[in-house]
C-alpha cells in the first residue's frame, strides 16, 4: 500500500503545473481560436494521446503520468485535453490495438494532432442499455458493406467527420448476441446518413439520432475482424474508466458549492454556520475522496496488469447520488435565485445526462449484484 508518488512523478506534476500556468487560456471553455492554440501546445508536448505508445506517435506516458496529467488539468480548470473526446477515448486505443498499419497511418496522426472529430455509434432505440442486442445491420456485398439501421444518443454526430460504429454482420437470426457485432469506421458525409438532433432538457443540442440507409462502407474500413466488434470496443473501454477525472471534477464542484454556501444565508444566519449545510458539504467531501481512491485502486489493477473490476460501476453509483444531492443543496442555498437560469440550475438538470449515460444506476446495481455478488438474473 503506497499512496506516494516517486520524485520523477512529482517532477512531472510540476511540469504540468508550469505548463498550465503558462498556457491556461483563462477559461475552461475557450473560443475556437484559443482552443486551437491550446491544442497546439498540447500537441507539441505529445499530451494528446499521451498514454499511447511512442511508436504510433503517442506520448508514451505511464499510467501514473496520465493520471497526474488529468488530475492537474482538472484541478486547474484547464480546457480539455483536445476536443475529440470520443476519438481519443475510444477510437485511438482501438486503432492501436486492432487497426491495420494502413488504418493507423490514416487515422492516428489526425487524432494526435487535434484535427479529428469522431462520434461513436453504440446505442440504438429500444436497446439503450443492452448493447448485445443491437440491430443495425451491415451486409457484405463484394468489397463493401451496406449498412442499414439507426443509432441514437450519438454525441456530436452533427459535427463529427467520422463515426466509430458498431453493426451486426451475422446472418444468424437470433439477435441477442455479441458474436456478430463488428466495428466499422464510416465517414459522416457518406451518402445515406441522416442526422437528426435531439435537444436536451436545457435546450442544448449535443445528442443526435443517426439514420443509415444503404450506406456503403469499404471493407478496408472495418476495424478488427467480423464479429470482433465487442472486443474492439470493450478493450478500449477498460482503460479509460478509472473514474478519477470524474472525482476531480466533483472536487471542483464542491469548491464551487462551498463558495456558494459562504455567500448564502440560511434561516437568517450565514449558511456555513448551519450544521446541516456543513455536514452535507463534508459528506460530499468524504464521498468524493472515496471516488478518487476507488479510481486509484483501478489504476493499481492496471499497473499490475489485472482485469479491471467493479470500480467503474461503484463510482458511477457514488457519483449519481453525489450529483443529485449536490444539486439539491446548491438550489436550496440559492433559494429564489435557484428558480432562475444559471450555472447551478443547468448543472442540476444536466447531470441527468451523465448519470444515465453509460448505464443507468439500476443497470450498475444489476451489474454489481449479478456479476460480483452472484445473485440470480432477473
Amino acid at each position: 500500500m503506497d499512496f506516494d508518488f516517486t520524485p520523477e512523478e512529482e517532477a512531472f506534476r510540476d511540469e504540468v503545473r508550469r505548463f498550465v500556468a503558462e498556457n491556461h487560456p483563462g477559461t475552461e471553455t475557450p473560443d475556437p481560436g484559443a482552443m486551437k492554440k491550446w491544442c497546439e501546445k498540447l500537441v507539441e508536448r505529445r499530451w494528446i494521446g499521451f498514454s499511447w505508445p511512442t511508436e504510433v506517435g503517442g506520448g508514451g506516458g505511464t499510467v501514473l503520468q496520465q493520471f497526474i496529467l488529468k488530475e492537474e488539468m482538472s484541478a486547474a480548470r484547464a480546457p480539455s485535453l483536445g476536443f475529440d473526446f470520443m476519438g481519443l477515448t475510444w477510437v485511438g486505443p482501438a486503432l492501436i490495438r486492432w487497426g491495420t498499419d494502413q488504418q493507423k497511418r490514416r487515422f492516428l496522426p489526425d487524432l494526435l494532432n487535434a484535427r479529428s472529430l469522431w462520434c461513436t455509434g453504440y446505442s440504438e432505440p429500444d436497446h439503450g442499455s443492452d448493447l448485445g442486442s443491437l440491430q443495425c445491420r451491415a451486409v457484405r456485398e463484394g468489397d463493401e458493406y451496406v449498412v442499414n439501421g439507426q443509432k441514437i444518443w450519438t454525441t456530436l454526430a452533427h459535427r463529427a467527420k467520422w463515426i466509430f460504429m458498431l453493426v451486426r454482420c451475422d446472418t444468424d437470426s437470433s439477435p441477442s448476441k455479441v458474436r456478430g457485432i463488428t466495428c466499422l469506421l464510416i465517414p459522416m458525409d457518406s451518402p445515406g446518413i441522416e442526422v437528426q438532433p435531439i435537444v436536451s432538457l436545457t435546450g442544448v443540442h449535443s445528442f443526435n439520432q443517426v439514420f443509415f440507409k444503404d450506406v456503403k462502407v469499404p471493407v478496408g474500413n472495418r476495424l478488427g475482424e467480423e464479429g470482433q466488434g465487442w472486443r474492439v470496443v470493450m478493450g478500449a473501454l477498460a482503460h479509460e474508466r478509472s473514474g478519477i477525472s470524474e472525482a476531480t471534477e466533483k472536487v471542483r464542484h464542491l469548491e464551487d458549492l462551498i463558495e456558494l454556501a459562504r455567500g448564502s444565508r440560511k434561516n437568517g444566519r450565514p449558511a456555513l454556520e448551519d450544521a446541516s449545510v456543513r455536514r452535507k458539504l463534508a459528506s460530499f467531501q468524504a464521498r468524493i475522496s472515496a471516488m478518487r481512491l476507488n479510481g486509484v485502486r483501478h489504476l493499481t489493477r492496471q499497473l499490475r496488469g489485472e482485469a479491471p473490476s467493479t470500480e467503474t460501476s461503484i463510482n458511477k453509483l457514488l457519483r449519481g447520488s453525489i450529483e443529485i444531492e449536490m444539486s439539491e443543496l446548491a438550489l436550496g442555498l440559492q433559494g429564489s435565485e435557484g428558480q432562475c437560469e444559471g450555472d447551478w440550475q443547468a448543472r442540476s438538470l444536466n447531470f441527468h445526462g451523465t448519470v444515465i449515460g453509460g448505464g443507468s444506476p439500476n443497470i450498475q446495481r444489476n451489474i454489481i449484484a449479478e456479476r460480483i455478488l452472484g445473485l440470480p438474473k432477473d
Partner: protein
Amino acid sequence: MNFGFSEEQELLRQQVRKLLDEQCPMNEVRRLIETPEGYSRELWKQLAELGFLGLLIPEEYGGAGLGWVDQVVMFEETGRTLFPSPLISTLLAASVIGDIGSEEQRRRWLPVIADGSRIGSLALLDQADVWSTEGVRLTARRRGDTFVLDGEKPFVVDANRADLLVVAFRTGGDDADLALAVVDGDVPGLEVTPVPTLDRTKCLGTVRFDDVQVAAQDVLGAPATAGPAISRVLDRGAAAVCAEMIGAAEAALASTVSYAKDRIQFGSPIGRFQGVKHPLAEMYTDIESFKSLVYYAAWALDRAPARVPLAVSEAKAFGSLAFSRIGIDGVQLHGAVGYTEEYDIQLYLKRSKWARPMFGDEDHHHDRIASLGGY
C-alpha cells in the same frame, strides 16, 4: 369529520380538467411559454367567464364565495397540466385586498379581478428568502398625504404581467409600521425587469421603485393590520403552491408509470422490475400523504385559522422534499429520454425546482415547525 370532497367539488374538478385538457393541453403549454406574454389572454377571459378567477372572492364582489378546499381542487388541475398563467399571483393579491381592504377598496378591485380585467401580484419581500415580515425592508418616505417608495423587490412572481401589485413596505421601525398598498402596474417610476426562469411556465421579475408615489387611499387596512396580513398571505401562498404541486406530482407519476408500462427492455416492460416499481410506489405514497397534509391545511384556512401556520408548514416541508424527489426520480426512470426536451417529464422536474423555494423550502418550514412546536 369527513375527509373527502363534496359532489360540487368533484364537479368543479371535472369542469376545470375538461377546460384545460381541451384548451391548454401540453403542446399548447409549450407554445404559450414561447410567446412574449407567456400565457393565453383568451383563456384567461374564459376562466373569468366561468367564474374560476373569483372562487375565493365573496359573491357581493363578483366572486363565487367558495373556500380554500374548492380552490385547492382547481389548483390541483392547473398544476397537473402546468397551466401557465398568473392565477396564483392574482388570487393572492385579491386575498389581501379581501382580507384587510376597506369596503371601498374591495369594491374597487375585487370585481375587476374576478372578471379577468385586472391581473394582480404580490411584491412583499425585498430580502429574498426571508419568508416573514422580516423580509420586508423597503421603507417609504412620507410626502404630504402620500408615501414615496424607492427600492427594489426581487423575485416578484408575474411582475411583468401584473396590472396591480400589492406592495409591502415600512413606514417606521416597528412591525406595527408595516404597510400594504395596491400599486398600479404602470405607475410612473415603477420598472419591471423580467428574469429568465428555469420553469418557463412561471414568470419572475425584479420590481424597481424610483420615486413611486402611493396615495393614502391605496394603502390597505387599518394601522398595524398589515403585518398579520402579510403572514397570512404567505401561508396562503404556500398552500396554493402546494395544491399545484399535488397536481404536477401526480402527472409526473402518471407519465412515469405509463412509460414504465410501455418501455420494453430485456424483454419485459421495465415496470415489472422492482427497481422501477418500488420508486413509483414511493412516489405514490408520498403524493397521497402530501395530499392529506394539503387538504387539511386548506380546511384550516377555511375553518380553523389558528391551525394554519403549522398545517401549512407541515404540508410545504413534506411536499418540497417529496416533489423534488419525484421530479428527479421521474426523469431518471425515463432513462435517456427523460433527459430530452421532447418528453414532458422534464417540465415537471423544472416545476419541482420552481415549487421548492416558493414561499419557503423544506428547511424554512421545518425550522418553523420546530419553532411552533417549542423545540
